[in-house]
């Protein structure tokens, strides 16, 4: 009943911004399709994963430069490697682990664990928590008094320079924002672009489609098939995103043999029942309907995204990021 209500909301006629006919149903990808080859419609309105990674790196470079300008300590951005870049892009890839584990090769080693990079820790590149920084640095970093949380924007730092609004974090974010726009049109900014932050339209469509599709009878039908397949393999689990409920090993540093065996059965059953293909097609339909309904607002997002892409590429060229 709730799903039916949702469809009405997503497809009702007469809303502003509609144009043309509703998109037709998405073709179901065949069983075993690599999720890396699947792209949900909303991704058109997100920064490409590569650009999100560059955005993050630039943000760190800009904050570091700003803090150094105040003569204050701040860790230098760690050097990127091909492995760290690939892992960072995975984190920004919408389909990565969205439907649970899907990669037969990965689960052979990692079970349900996310593949972990072995990084040699160095003092210079170790992650920093706010408490690791002296109070003077925290004041300039965030533009607030560390004790009271009150803004100190415009006041002078120890070296006599005025602290920018939002501190060095605020200054970096303004440099990375799409040029020629303001926060009213940019909306909640996230690492994946305009309106991808908390409360943003793009984030809403991405989350809404996930919830709606997972409750859609076409998808719950393949969940049942998958669950039966898992039961035949000796595992009692109801749906793919909650497959690890009974596994204690997932909180350990490494998977045990039992976890790996279950994860392998999980991937095999997903292939046999085509959970990924069906779910992807249904979720794409929900997203296409929402995109159609919000076409006018998303045209603004797209323009912002193009401007932000230009800003990121330009800054990356100047900063070698």
């Amino acid at each position, binding site marked *: 009943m709730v799903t039916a209500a949702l469809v009405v909301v997503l497809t009702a006629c007469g809303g502003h911004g509609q144009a043309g006919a509703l998109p037709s149903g998405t073709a179901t990808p065949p069983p075993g399709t690599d999720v890396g080859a699947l792209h949900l419609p909303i991704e058109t309105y997100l920064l490409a994963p590569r650009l999100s990674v560059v955005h993050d790196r630039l943000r760190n470079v800009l904050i570091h430069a700003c803090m150094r300008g105040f003569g204050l300590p701040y860790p230098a951005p760690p050097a990127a490697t091909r492995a760290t870049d690939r892992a960072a892009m995975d984190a920004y890839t919408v389909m990565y682990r969205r439907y649970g584990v899907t990669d037969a090769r990965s689960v052979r080693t990692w079970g349900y664990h*996310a593949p972990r990079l072995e990084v040699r820790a160095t003092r210079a590149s170790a992650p920093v928590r706010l408490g690791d920084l002296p109070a003077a640095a925290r004041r300039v970093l965030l533009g607030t008094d560390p004790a009271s949380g009150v803004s100190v924007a415009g006041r002078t730092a120890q070296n006599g320079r005025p602290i920018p609004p939002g501190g060095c974090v605020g200054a970096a974010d303004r440099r990375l924002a799409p040029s020629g726009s303001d926060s009213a049109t940019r909306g909640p900014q996230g690492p994946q672009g305009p309106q991808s932050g908390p409360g943003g339209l793009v984030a809403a469509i991405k989350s809404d489609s996930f919830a709606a599709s997972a409750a859609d009878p076409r998808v719950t039908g393949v969940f049942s098939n998958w669950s039966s397949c898992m039961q035949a393999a000796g595992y009692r689990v109801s749906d793919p995103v909650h497959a690890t409920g009974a596994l204690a090993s997932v909180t350990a540093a490494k998977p045990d043999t039992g976890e790996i065996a279950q994860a392998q059965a999980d991937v095999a059953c997903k292939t046999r029942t085509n959970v990924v293909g069906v779910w992807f097609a249904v979720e794409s339909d929900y997203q296409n309907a929402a995109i159609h309904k919000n076409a006018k607002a998303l045209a603004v997002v797209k323009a912002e995204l193009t401007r932000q892409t230009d800003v990121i590429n330009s800054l990356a060229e100047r900063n070698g990021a």
Partner: protein
Amino acid sequence: MAVRRLAARAGLVAGMLGLVVGGVAGTADARSDNISSWNSYRCNTVNWFCLYYSQGASGASLGYQHADADIHNLGNYTYANDGAGAGQVVRNNAASAEDVSDCNVGIWYAPNFTGDSEWLNPWMGGDLTFLSNNEASISVDDNTNCPGRGMH
């Protein structure tokens, strides 16, 4: 049961979509002024991140400072005795979060970092609009700034 919760969630989020669109199309809607993101101010700075029972980093809190920088299942954690929601289980019961590290922090719908997710940039806090009361795991997830940390 999980699917029923998702269905209820779908209805809630769909209702919110109209509000969000209004914010984009309008010019002075407060929602568009990034009010749900702020420089972290409450989370104890020895932590990587904090979750809060209420919006705006208010209500009872859960701070996490262990070196692994990840929580696989928030169902195993309860809020501290420091506000509304004190002592309650955190899973599906958080409305905001703060990141007090120089790493991105991810928050996921399901345990073990799967399903839909939301993000916090380094040093930032935010309301979990779409995963609010519907989250199960959280971790540092940033192979650009913090490679090898979190999601163990």
